[in-house]
């Protein structure tokens, strides 16, 4: 609480009138968009799936933007300061292969099954049980994550600008609720594309000016090595041979199999928040291209998130004493160390951006916050309306009724998120639990979905019990490592030198493996699903329609090959 008290009494800067003008213009435009598209969101297909008329570029940018929330921006900039370049793995190996896999392999099944949601696909493939488990956990988690996101942003606004926390929470929440309620997914997507551009417009100056000040990348690396006394902060792979050789306490097997395979594929291919954006594409080729375009832009995000964190290690100095400022964890903040890792991005923003540019940078942070929140609330409203209300409470209502339910559930979802934000404000440790909760579901869900899509023999019982076993085992492992100390951690992460970050990676891998083993075992002893029922849902039982690409330039696989080549090159360059 001492740390929090210090945070709440410190204000880094204030806005000039020109900054307020820039911020006000942003709010006016996002609200205008909500009112403007309201007339085009009369049917449920229009409200929940934006009429399935988005181009690949729009769906692709929205796909990346919905994930680029404030936690993502500030949290990973802080992680880059704390762990160095290793944080980049969450943007590259932890995203790119999975996004390409979604576009090239999985999207055809999501798209041609005409499902409205990921739980909807599970219902078609594994029945109501799997859909119910998945929909309830997703709806619950989405609201909690939205609330955590909301509180994090409000806290940053308090620290940076001295804004009242309640004011920040309510102004952001009400704005997002209005434009999503009016325009549904269409409004959310348009704003997400706009927000993506604004995030770059507001944040790109930090790495540009920072690299200028540092004298370029090579000098930056040298300065970091001097300041922290180690070369470990500027390499992606060379320090991952052993748990104790890197600041994160992880091993390359955890990064490749836990993060790169299970967590990444789980999030990017089964989390409905991001998949919903791609389902809005106007044809199969656009649906396949959207994640490829998203992947290309995702690869560039470390420039505005990771580089500022690294720059702070080299150039962030006290303006009076000229001493390097040492950032610390949230619970270590005191008079000598007034700033935490999570404030690294605002600190760098203030370092380089005067009036006008500061307003643009703050707008970028708020845009990130709002795009993340709109993503959560629009996905929640769809899953609630289609997969819970429409599936279990009122199956035969009119289309107009479901649209109305979608609008009202947006408001209710937002109010529940605000409640969560206040809950977190009074018990900050809830934030850690919420993030742990999220990890319980995502890894096993990937096991269920991937077997459902690629293996005809997977049965309904197999899918249900596999999902349940994976989730329960993940919770059990988390409890074991939380209360079992270093010895328990060593059992899960396979080394006494492992740190908590490694636990997350290995737990995901084990829970996925348990899900797969149980799904396969139960499926083999239960009656197979007749092949006729699997058409359009499973590889081998489905004729994938031609996506209409007539030249090499139009083929999603061609662009995916280019993106994966750049991905490998980047990993080699920063090895």
């Amino acid at each position, binding site marked *: 609480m001492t740390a929090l008290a210090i945070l709440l009494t410190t204000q880094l800067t204030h806005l000039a009138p020109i900054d307020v003008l820039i911020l006000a213009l942003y709010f006016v435009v996002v609200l205008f968009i909500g009112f403007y598209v309201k007339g085009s969101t009369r049917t449920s297909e229009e409200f929940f799936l934006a009429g399935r008329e988005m181009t690949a570029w729009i769906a692709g940018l929205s796909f990346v933007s919905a994930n680029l929330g404030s936690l993502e921006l500030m949290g990973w900039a802080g992680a880059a300061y704390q762990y160095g370049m290793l944080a980049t793995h969450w943007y590259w190996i932890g995203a790119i292969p999975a996004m390409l896999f979604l576009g090239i392999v999985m999207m055809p099944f999501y798209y041609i099954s005409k499902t409205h949601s990921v739980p909807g696909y599970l219902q078609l493939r594994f029945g109501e049980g799997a859909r119910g488990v998945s929909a309830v956990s997703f709806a619950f988690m989405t609201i909690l994550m939205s609330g955590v996101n909301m509180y994090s942003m409000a806290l940053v606004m308090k620290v940076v600008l001295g804004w009242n926390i309640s004011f920040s929470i309510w102004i952001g929440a009400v704005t997002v609720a209005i434009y999503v309620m009016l325009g549904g997914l269409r409004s959310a997507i348009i704003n997400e594309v706009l927000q993506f551009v*604004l995030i770059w417009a507001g944040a790109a100056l930090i790495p540009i*000016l920072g690299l200028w000040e540092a004298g370029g990348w090579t000098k930056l690396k040298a300065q970091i090595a001097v300041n922290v006394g180690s070369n470990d902060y500027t390499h992606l792979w060379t320090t991952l041979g052993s748990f104790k050789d890197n600041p994160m306490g992880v091993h390359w097997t955890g990064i490749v199999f836990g993060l790169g395979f299970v967590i990444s594929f789980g999030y990017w291919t089964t989390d409905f928040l991001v998949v919903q954006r791609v389902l809005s594409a106007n044809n199969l080729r656009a649906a396949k291209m959207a994640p490829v375009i998203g992947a290309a832009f995702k690869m560039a995000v470390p420039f505005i998130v990771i580089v500022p964190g690294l720059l702070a290690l080299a150039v962030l100095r006290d303006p009076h004493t000229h001493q390097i400022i040492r950032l610390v964890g949230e619970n270590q903040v005191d008079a000598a160390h007034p700033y935490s890792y999570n404030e690294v991005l605002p600190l760098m923003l203030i370092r380089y951006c005067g009036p006008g540019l500061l307003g643009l940078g703050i707008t970028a942070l708020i845009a990130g916050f709002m795009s993340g929140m709109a993503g959560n609330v629009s996905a929640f409203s769809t899953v609630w309306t289609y997969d819970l209300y429409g599936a279990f409470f009122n199956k035969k209502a009119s289309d107009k009724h479901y649209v109305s339910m979608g609008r009202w559930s947006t408001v209710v979802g937002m109010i529940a998120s605000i409640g969560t934000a206040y809950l977190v404000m009074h018990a900050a440790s809830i934030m850690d639990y919420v993030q742990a909760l999220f990890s319980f579901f995502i890894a096993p869900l990937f096991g269920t979905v991937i077997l459902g899509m690629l293996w005809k023999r997977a049965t309904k019982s197999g899918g249900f019990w596999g999902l349940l076993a994976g989730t329960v085992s993940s919770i059990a492992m988390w409890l074991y490592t939380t209360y079992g100390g270093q010895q328990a951690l060593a059992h899960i992460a396979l080394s006494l030198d492992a740190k908590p970050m490694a636990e997350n990676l290995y737990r995901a891998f084990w829970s996925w493996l348990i899900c797969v083993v149980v799904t396969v075992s139960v499926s083999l002893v239960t009656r197979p699903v007749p092949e006729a029922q699997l058409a359009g849902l499973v590889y081998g039982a489905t004729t994938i329609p031609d996506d209409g690409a007539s030249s090499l330039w139009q083929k999603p696989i061609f662009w995916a090959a280019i993106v994966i080549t750049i991905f490998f090159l980047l990993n080699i360059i920063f090895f």
Partner: protein
Amino acid sequence: MAEGTGRGESLSIWFFVGGLTLLYGIILLPYGAYEWFSGHESSTVLSNLHPTFWWGLLLTLFGGFYTIRFRPEKG
């Protein structure tokens, strides 16, 4: 049909992107010029490079291009 905003609408999603960045450029460019030529630079690091002016110019060009390229068609 305007891209992204729905059947029958005239303003494309890219018009909004261009319009807002153009507005920001129009605000930042003269402010940056005022700071530069009147000597009222802010006290931020590297303010001698006049980032507000140059960033404002970039946003004006980017926003201007998108606004014109995706302006609503007559009728």
